[in-house]
């Protein structure tokens, strides 16, 4: 099942991108050929295989957890230092809730 321009436009929305007509025209065949290639995985019977969601190797007790104690992190001014726009200790963005 070949990838269509409609599919690409749908994914574009999900990914918060805004492609030009030219980009879409270029991407459709490229993405299609890559996705077709990925179909190869269907040659394998994986019905008895557990998905490998973790790569880490457990050691002794779970080392990933620690006591829930606050630790020094960024100061507010450090966190805001790279913000395109900020004010009153907050990141400034366009209105989030749009009136219908």
């Amino acid at each position: 099942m070949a990838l269509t321009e409609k599919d690409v436009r749908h994914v574009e929305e999900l990914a918060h991108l805004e492609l030009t007509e030219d980009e879409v025209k270029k991407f459709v065949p490229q993405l299609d050929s890559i996705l077709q290639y990925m179909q190869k995985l269907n040659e394998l019977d994986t019905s008895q295989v557990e998905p490998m969601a973790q790569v880490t190797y457990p050691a002794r007790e779970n080392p990933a957890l620690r006591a829930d104690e606050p630790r020094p992190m960024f100061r507010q001014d450090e966190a805001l230092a790279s913000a395109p726009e900020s004010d009153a200790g907050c990141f400034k963005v366009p209105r989030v809730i749009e009136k219908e």
Partner: protein
Amino acid sequence: MDLTALSISEIRQRLAARKISVEELVRAHFERIAARDGEVRAYLHLSPERALEQARKIDAVVAAGGALPPLAGVPVAVKDVILTRGLRNTCASKILENYVAPYDATAVERLEAAGACILGKTNCDEFAMGSSTENSGFFATHNPHDLTRVPGGSSGGSGAAVAAQMATVALGSDTGGSIRQPAAFCDVVGMMGTYGRVSRYGLVAFASSLDHIGPFGRSVRDVALVLRTIAGRDPRDSTSADVPVPDYEAALDRDVRGLKVGVPREYFAGLNPQIGGNIQAGIDLLGKLGCKIETLSLPHTDYAIGCYYIICTAEASSNLARYDGVRYGFRSPQFDGLRDMYKKTRDRGFGAEVKRRIMLGTYVLSSGYYDAYYLKAQKVRALIARDFVQAFEQVDVIVTPTSPIPPFRLGERVDDPLQMYLADIYTVTASLAGIPGISVPCGRTKGEPRLPVGMQILAKHFDEARLLQVAHAFEKAGGLQVA
């Protein structure tokens, strides 16, 4: 004496004997960069103040007769996806063009605590996505051995910097081969440890289950010394392994006689004749050193690229969602509302390859496709990992070519993304399995021009010492000039 040709041990000896100062060494490297980087273009930005401040600190320690830290005075280049506090960190992307890192990556902290001097940040493919450094949002890096050719990627800048003596060692990142392949292309040593061997804290995430930080060097010993410094449990990275770090340097000179070397037939079928001879010569040399060579099978090799590109793009689409113009980085100057701000920011800020991968990743995770692609890929990943577990029950290390092709010309392969992906075939498998791998130089191709060829050695989880031992024996026996 050419200060930029020195190894870590040579630097140490000369510092201890007060033959050179760190300041001289660092200045010599900046001079070298000024002389060569105009054509190689390995560096994105330099950090002379930071390097010289560190140099003076170490020189003061020497003057006071204090003990030299393990990497005292060593000039290091750091790939621009690894955060260095107070320095710009662009990930070679316009979307982070003016972003300044608010903290140091653990690997960088450890290097500086060991006395190393950070010279600057190196070029790479944008967000580490690519195999040639041509996807950098700024400019391409050129292979120091042939300026018309690519240095490999995505850590091409780091590989080139070390090859051209513009740094003694460098840090890169490897997700599907991004340290090993540029090491092969640039004729240097590059290593990726076991997943979790080196903390990823401060590495800008591309694919979180596949990313690694690792070293480049001009010798196996230098790579071993850097790995020893940066490896180890880090509470700030919950995937970093709680496994002790052995003395990799001490392991180097162990005898390799009797070790079993596996040669997987799937990696040699249809092998490019330009490099096949080199790898065979490399294997023959290991045989002469007393290793037992055995053919074996890694039956799911053919599915690795499909598996890798589903998983890494899926993870990337999630990791790169944060570049939205809200908290840091580029924000589009014009927009009509919040969603439009996201879309224009990302569209203008990201290059084509990054967009392609975000699109692929979003697609394979989207409703209706998740099971068919992402879940399927995770199962295939388990099969690929199992191939290696079974292989390492038979052999101690596995030897393969690093890349199916020698360094290609700039611009030669930009039009066909799938072809570019297929060239990762020998390196993605280790990333999927989480095992360590190293690429060592293995001579040059025959005919003109004579291009670098790399040989990859793989070992089982946390067996980096074994990997380094075999690589070092190979290097000592003249392996780097074989063929």
